[in-house]
């Protein structure tokens, strides 16, 4: 999945399959990291990127999660370049 078109961006952001996977992803994070939001976010970054999140990332993500929920964050992680491209 390495194309760089706007249509691919829209498909990864909004297609029902991707949104369902994001929901499953967030359920797994809740199962494994409990109810503590910072712990959830740290686990989500580890699972998506195979590395711990930086302090800045955790802080921005926590702010986003507070307003819009963990599933919305998981959707963004699945859209991130770091997830899509294997370095």
């Amino acid at each position: 999945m390495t194309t760089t078109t706007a249509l691919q961006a829209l498909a990864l952001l909004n297609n029902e399959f991707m949104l369902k996977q994001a929901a499953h992803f967030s359920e797994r994070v809740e199962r494994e990291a409990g109810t503590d939001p910072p712990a959830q976010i740290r686990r989500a970054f580890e699972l998506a990127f195979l590395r711990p999140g930086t302090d800045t990332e955790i802080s921005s993500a926590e702010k986003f999660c507070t307003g819009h929920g963990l599933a919305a964050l998981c959707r963004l992680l699945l859209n991130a370049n770091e997830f899509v491209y294997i370095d």
Partner: protein
Amino acid sequence: MNPSRCLGHQRSVNRRDFLWQLGGGLGGVALTAMMAEANAAAKNPLAPKPPHFAPKAKAVIQIFCPGGLSHIDSWDYKPELARRNGQPFDAGGKLQFFASKPGSCQGSYWPFQQHGQCGRWISDLFPQLATCVDDIAFIHSMQSKSALHGPAMFMANTGFILPGFPSMGAWVTYGLGSESDNLPAFVVLPDPRGLPPGGVINWGAGFLPAVYQGTPLNTDAGAAPIADLFPPKSFADALASGEKEGRELLRELNTQHAAEHPGNSELEARISAYELAARLQLSAPEVTDVRGETESMQKLYGLEHEDRGPFGRQCLLARRLVERGVRFVQIYCGAENTTAKKIRPNWDSHEDLVRDHGYWGPILDHGAAALLQDLRQRGLLDSTLVICTTEFGRQPRRRARRGGITIPVHSPRGWRVGGSRAVSPTARRTSWVSRPRSIRRIATICTRPRCNSSVSTTRS
């Protein structure tokens, strides 16, 4: 390079850092500088680029008629063939036939009249386009290398019968970039009945970066113009409040990631793709909503007509896209080549040419003539090149099995209008006996003495 990545990990250095350190020193510094330069150039692959020569045309609208729009029944006047109507067809015994044995000669099913100041002969199948002939250049020398639909589509769109090559719109976008910030440079408007033979490869970027490929818009009135433009209803409410902040966070993550991976233009291109995607959420519904057009304009394109309406809407959308800075618009007049009980879904009129061309002719005639008239009124015809092409013509004969039915074969041909029109109104003519099935066969035909001295044979 990125200490945070190493914390708590067994590996002390990642592959990229290792290679950098291995080749480090001044060479590494120089390489980094060069990569940064290359990266800056690649940051926006769609930035407009100046052409080598000042162009007259700023935009192209290509109308593609999948299947075989018969040259004999449209714009290639063949009085000699009309004279030989019903006589035995003899191509020298060297032609191979695809699905039938040759029957007798068959000229146009529609009479031809002269039109315009140029006195151009046009068949009665296209009465409205006939009023535009003084603006049109006809090119009769085009030919295909394949008698099959997929390869012939690729041939017409990319110049090669094999898939994997960039389409014309992709090349134009690659060479000139985009004039529009809110819409793609290369937009495709497929027939609402479905995709043409060969599907999406027809507007693919081939070996060029994918960012240059065509963006198809759904042309079905009432449907969303782009799939997945917004989340489905079941998710929409939950996600609505966070879309803006979400885009900002994603950009933050991606920008940081790109900074750690200098020299990878795809990362920047993908960040740009998300930004264009966000702008498309506003621009695509706007450009495809034709309700704001005046009543006379909707009437001109025949939007309310059951058969002509869908293609009329495609043509109107093409004008709206060009107005908004889109550089290359491809309209498909016809879908996949399948048999149908009533009418074939494209121009491939194998069973009944009079029936199928009789259906598609008025559709193309009305929409294309409306487009030319509209562009001219708005002064856009000076800067917009309009091209109409198809896959094949047809052979100048009927099938042997059943009278009155012809089989269309096989050379792309078309006309073009406006923009940088530089060729003479009729660039080349074909012989009365054209169109054979392959380039080799064309060569065979061309060695024969001409049957009508008033016309020249086709180029082989």
